[in-house]
């Protein structure tokens, strides 16, 4: 049976992990490659690297990092951040990334999704959607939730599926950083509406939140950052607990 995936997300700036990481047995917690290897060993099913470098030079170091991760890590990983063309994707896949995640560039030019899935296959195209619930509507936002668009989350999700996305990474800006749980109602609606896998993101604080997002939110995978980086939740413990709750995981 296909299992639910647990995905730690690492923010990368100029080739280094950004958010503080509190791992006891790492020589260099700022080194994304070390961290990725550790996570693979601890039972992570997949990894996401989000490049938040603002400069061209920073982006170039990203390529070196991707190459090193591909060399040393034996689980799949996705790279996102600042990807806006076929060439960008070609470069990253050549460095050994398994999937790429696009966000603003897809909103600005939706045809990019078609182009990427036609050229590289939908299996490597993840469309990340950041949305905020304003009154009763889920509004798609850009630039880390700061700029609202005219798009509705569900309409946009349906469109990205039609255009060939292989997966949707949905971050609720209302839940992100709160550690109060995932946006399960919106997630469940999303998951029933589209026929591609949904990764839940934003709001992970406790093990129960993960149980809820798989049961109530019907998510196919759950992504989190700080609860893993600071060791608040151990991935193996989390997966054992999910298993106890009859949620299929890889152990």
């Amino acid at each position, binding site marked *: 049976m296909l299992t639910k995936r647990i995905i730690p997300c690492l923010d990368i700036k100029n080739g280094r992990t950004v958010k503080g990481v509190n791992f006891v047995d790492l020589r260099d917690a700022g080194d994304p490659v070390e961290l990725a290897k550790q996570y*693979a060993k601890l039972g992570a099913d997949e990894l996401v690297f989000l490049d938040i470098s603002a400069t061209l030079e920073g982006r170039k170091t990203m390529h070196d990092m991707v190459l090193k991760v*591909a060399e040393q890590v034996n*689980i799949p990983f996705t790279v996102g951040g600042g990807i806006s063309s076929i060439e960008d994707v070609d470069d990253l896949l*050549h460095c050994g990334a398994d999937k790429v995640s696009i966000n603003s560039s897809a909103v600005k030019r939706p045809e990019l999704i078609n182009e990427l899935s036609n050229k*590289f296959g939908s299996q490597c195209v993840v469309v990340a959607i950041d949305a905020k619930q304003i009154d009763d509507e889920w509004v798609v936002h850009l630039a880390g939730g700061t700029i609202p668009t005219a798009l509705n989350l569900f309409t946009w999700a349906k469109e990205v599926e039609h255009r060939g996305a292989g997966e949707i990474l949905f971050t609720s800006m209302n839940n992100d950083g709160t550690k109060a749980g995932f946006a399960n109602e919106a997630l469940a609606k999303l998951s029933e509406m589209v026929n591609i896998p949904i990764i839940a993101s934003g709001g992970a604080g406790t093990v129960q939140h993960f149980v809820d997002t798989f049961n109530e939110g019907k998510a196919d995978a759950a992504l989190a950052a700080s609860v893993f980086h600071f060791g608040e939740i151990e991935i193996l413990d989390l997966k054992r607990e999910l298993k106890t709750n009859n949620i299929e995981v890889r152990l």
Partner: protein
Amino acid sequence: MNVVIVDYGAGNIKSIQFAFKRLGVDAVLSNKPEVIKAADKVIFPGVGEASSAMEMLKQSGLDELIPKLKQPVLGICLGMQLMCNYTEEGNTKGLGIFDVNVKRFSKVVKVPQMGWNTVKNLKSDLFKGINEAEFMYLVHSYYAENCSEAIATSDYELEYASALENDNFYGVQFHPEKSSVAGEQLLKNFLKL
């Protein structure tokens, strides 16, 4: 050990090369018939769309060469599917190495299947030291039907062949290069065949 990864322009083959490197083997990337023929072991990868991948194979004459190879050949993901008789993807005739057809998952399940699933009914030396119901990483929208050449099956919508064997030819639907320790074991086993 002379391992050659068939490089015909279809997909992310760097990961496979790196996986062998982690096992201490420098695998060579090539689309040259003489290099492929001289290999001890051949890896036939593939990611992307079937009909265009088959077109690329034909352009380099590899569609003729691969079925005639005598050394162990391992098809991975789309590589495995192209070794079958026929695939519904792009209505594509395959290499006919495995006597089975490839079909699309229906809308009953999410497509692509993406993530870790178990492999069971393990039969071949390819799975030596790998436990029944071990997890492997898969990403695919099409599947080979369960058949007499299946050496592993998995369940997604239905029970399908997640690995195949016929003489010196092997195929796996999952990505051993991305399947953690179990995947590494499978690649080690392949090197020993």
